[in-house]
């Protein structure tokens, strides 16, 4: 408790949390949320220009915001065909190479969606047409095995590869497409930034520093772990 109090006494740059959240929403293309957030913050938080004066970084991810929002929505709804169509229309370079990771993820997701509704014959056809080529693409071979294995189980959701049917898998694909679209930005300064948000980088640094520190202490005590922090420690705090 005492340690917690000491940590709480540290001061942060004003509005840095607000900035980080905004940055997250922008990066992943949560446009509607962002707009509500901005409207509600008008009175209480500084504008982008004021923020830059305070030494905050730039919000570069406004690029393709609406398109990214649309693509995310399509993928989250499992409508991969339309997602492909839109990508061909808006960002053909992303789907040009049909053996790319992005294409793999999209094709896999299409396959998964067939499985989800029990259209096994269609799944098999699709798999033969679009997934077979990926068996020779080393980085994805393992994941591909899991995907195809869905055919073997009934019900697939309860199998060891059932995780592919969860919403988190759709989100994973949506995030990959998001990153790919961001990478088409002609004004892109830092390719790394397409993959990770500021928030993620901060959380990784926190986790690693905590682990390193613990290593000096002969691995005693608990290191920081976000998942546990969010689900375990959270109790009502009274001042």
């Amino acid at each position: 408790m005492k340690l917690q109090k000491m940590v709480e006494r540290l001061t942060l740059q004003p509005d840095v949390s607000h900035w980080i959240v905004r940055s997250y929403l922008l990066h992943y293309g949560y446009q509607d949320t962002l707009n509500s957030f901005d409207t509600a913050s008008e009175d209480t938080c500084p504008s982008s220009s004021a923020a830059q004066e305070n030494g905050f970084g730039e919000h570069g991810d406004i690029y393709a915001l609406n398109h990214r929002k649309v693509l995310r929505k399509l993928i989250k709804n499992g409508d991969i065909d339309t997602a492909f169509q839109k990508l061909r229309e808006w960002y053909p370079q992303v789907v040009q190479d049909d053996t790319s990771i992005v294409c793999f993820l999209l094709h896999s997701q299409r396959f998964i969606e067939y499985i989800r509704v029990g259209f096994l014959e269609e799944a098999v056809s699709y798999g033969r047409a679009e997934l077979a080529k990926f068996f020779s693409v080393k980085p994805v071979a393992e994941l591909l095995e899991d995907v195809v294995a869905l055919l073997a189980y009934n019900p697939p959701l309860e199998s060891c590869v059932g995780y592919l049917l969860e919403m988190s898998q759709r989100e994973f694909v949506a995030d990959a497409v998001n990153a790919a679209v961001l990478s088409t930005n002609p004004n892109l300064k830092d390719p790394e930034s397409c993959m990770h948000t500021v928030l993620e980088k901060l959380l990784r640094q926190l986790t690693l520093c905590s682990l390193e520190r613990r290593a000096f202490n002969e691995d005693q005590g608990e290191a920081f772990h976000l998942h546990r922090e969010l689900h375990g420690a959270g109790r009502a705090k009274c001042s």
Partner: protein
Amino acid sequence: MSLSWIFLGQLDSIETMSTSKKVITREEWERKLKDVKIRKEDMNKLVMNFLVTEGYVEAAEKFRIESGTEPDIDLATITDRMAVKKAVQSGNVKDAIEKVNDLNPMILDTNPQLYFHLQQQRLIELIRIGKVEEALEFAQEELAPRGEENQSFLEELERTVALLAFEDVKNCPYGELLDVSQRLKTASEVNAAILTSQSHEKDPKLPSLLKMLIWAQNQLDDKAAYPRINNLSTAVLEDPAI
């Protein structure tokens, strides 16, 4: 026996002195960072927690739709809380007090400091619009009795009443009480009290985690030289000073 202990003690301190900090190169650090997995859904939860605790109802609703993340409290309760916050931010303190009591009369009953600050804000608003007589009456009837019970209340009351002594209120010594920031401060206090009464953590988790990062880096600085993040808004790694 005792001599050898002293000798060993000296050896020990010599060792600690000559141990320099472990240097971790950027390459190694970045490699290790790659191995740290942060789940997207956990980050979504963190963001949702921020939106909800800070009262961004609409944004929380939109985020729920756009990300599929469930908020950790009932969004309907946020609307009530936000109405109170907004009332204070607009200077409608009487309205805010009524709303808080509608929500839960225990909140103000169990929070004398909050109640005092709200009353103080009312006084400030009366002074702001130049209603001198009303302000004085209010101060005497509502605030003075509180001041008698509590030294710090009395001091704050005196500071506020002092505003009446100046023609150019905005530029007098306690002029900052008339600032919007004072309203925001009070609004924040109310917000926290309501959240607490709803058994919700009154603070969003994100700022705590940011502080934890600062702390973790400070702690690690004792033992190692490694790439640090010095600007939280950019999360840029800065090379270790060797």
